[in-house]
């Protein structure tokens, strides 16, 4: 199931995507935009795992994660009409919404102590606990391998920012480096990841 979603991000999904059994995300999303319930159920099958996974990664708390993931999937239903293929793949669109929602929740709660206690800046223990099972998949391995190819500062900056939901000034503080350094490491690291994963957009 997830492989289909992942294939949407790849430059070459191959010709076999036209069947009813393995519909492509863009096609599903177009049907969802027309209010097609069956298409939304298929889309749920494709996207709920990645959406819930990334939200949980950031928020940690299962109950909160479920609440936010539900909001995100509902948002996908509601705004499918606004998806713009010129701006990226359906999966990237959906996961951008998901990540942003999760981070918004983190930031709006940063006054409360709940999450701060959980989010101790122990990098070795960083957010990998949640998705052990999935990291075993080929695609997870590939991402991990590419992450391993980064410098330590690039890797930790990206992980703290994306999986940890920290702002780059917070990342700078956690890593004890200058703001400008974190900014450029995040960008350089992502560009290297892009090339390593052969993302072509």
């Amino acid at each position: 199931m997830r492989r289909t979603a992942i294939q949407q991000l790849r430059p070459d999904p191959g010709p076999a995507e036209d069947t009813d059994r393995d519909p492509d995300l863009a096609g599903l999303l177009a049907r969802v935009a027309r209010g097609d319930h069956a298409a939304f159920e298929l889309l749920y099958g494709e996207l709920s795992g990645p959406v819930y996974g990334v939200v949980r990664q950031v928020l940690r708390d299962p109950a909160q994660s479920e609440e936010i993931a539900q909001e995100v999937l509902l948002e996908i239903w509601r705004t499918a009409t606004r998806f713009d293929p010129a701006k990226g793949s359906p999966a990237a669109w959906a996961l951008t919404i998901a990540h942003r929602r999760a981070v918004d929740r983190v930031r709006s709660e940063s006054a409360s102590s709940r999450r701060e206690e959980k989010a101790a800046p122990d990098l070795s223990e960083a957010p990998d606990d949640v998705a052990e099972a999935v990291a075993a998949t080929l695609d997870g391995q590939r991402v991990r391998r590419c992450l391993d190819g980064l410098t330590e500062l690039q890797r930790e900056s990206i992980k703290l920012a994306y999986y940890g939901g920290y702002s780059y000034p917070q990342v700078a503080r956690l890593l004890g480096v200058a703001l400008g350094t974190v900014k450029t490491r995040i960008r350089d690291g992502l560009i290297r990841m892009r090339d390593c994963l052969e993302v072509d957009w």
Partner: protein
Amino acid sequence: MKVMRDDLHALSGSYVLDALSEPERESFERHLQHCSSCEDEVRGLRETAARLALAKALDPPPQMRPRVLAAAYRTRQLPPPGLVDGERRQARVTWLFAGRPRGAQRREQRRARVPRLAAAFAAASLVVIVALGITQAMTRHQPGTARTAGAAISRIVTAPDARTDTMRTSAGGTVTVVVSSGQQAAVVSATGMRSLPSAQTYQLWVIGPDGARSAGLLSGAGRAGPVLAAGVVPGDRIGITVEPAGGTSSPTTTPVVAVPV
């Protein structure tokens, strides 16, 4: 805090990871609107970030599914970007898919005299080169071509010199053309044109001093594109005619619309 342009550019990575403060995010998004290279970079990095998310996919609790589905079916979807929204939106890239850019209505009024182009069609000696006509129907069988077209299309709509024009057609609806002189190409999409019987099709033409050449067929359903038309130079026009199914080598009817490039 006043941020310099170079610094802004370096924020692309943090922007994609949602690691900017709200004011920084806003100023970066403003910057994005007139920095097409940044836009390209953001697109690629966003796909990359999505991979980071996919690597962490995790099955949600089973009770979530019925809740989401039930909530969805009780929730009205946003209308697609239409006339009103199209005018409000500012990002150049969205125009193509979103409908009409601001000011389009005024231009339409100025250019309402469409049929004068029929003369150009009739007079021209018609050398036909089907250079690069890609309709959605065709791409379904040619994924490789589709992808190339997709990349070419985004290159054009994000080109620094891209201009967008929207005109009403005499078959109803509107056609939107994004032209880049630098890329010598245009991207065309149509919406709201009347549906044709199955024996007919819409056909897209690039009309220059030497006549009209086909740039491919458009769906007879009245909603088509984006379609890429290559070899477009200033002075050309982009026209659409109604033709027998399968298309013709030269236009046989008066165009329903002709957009000056």
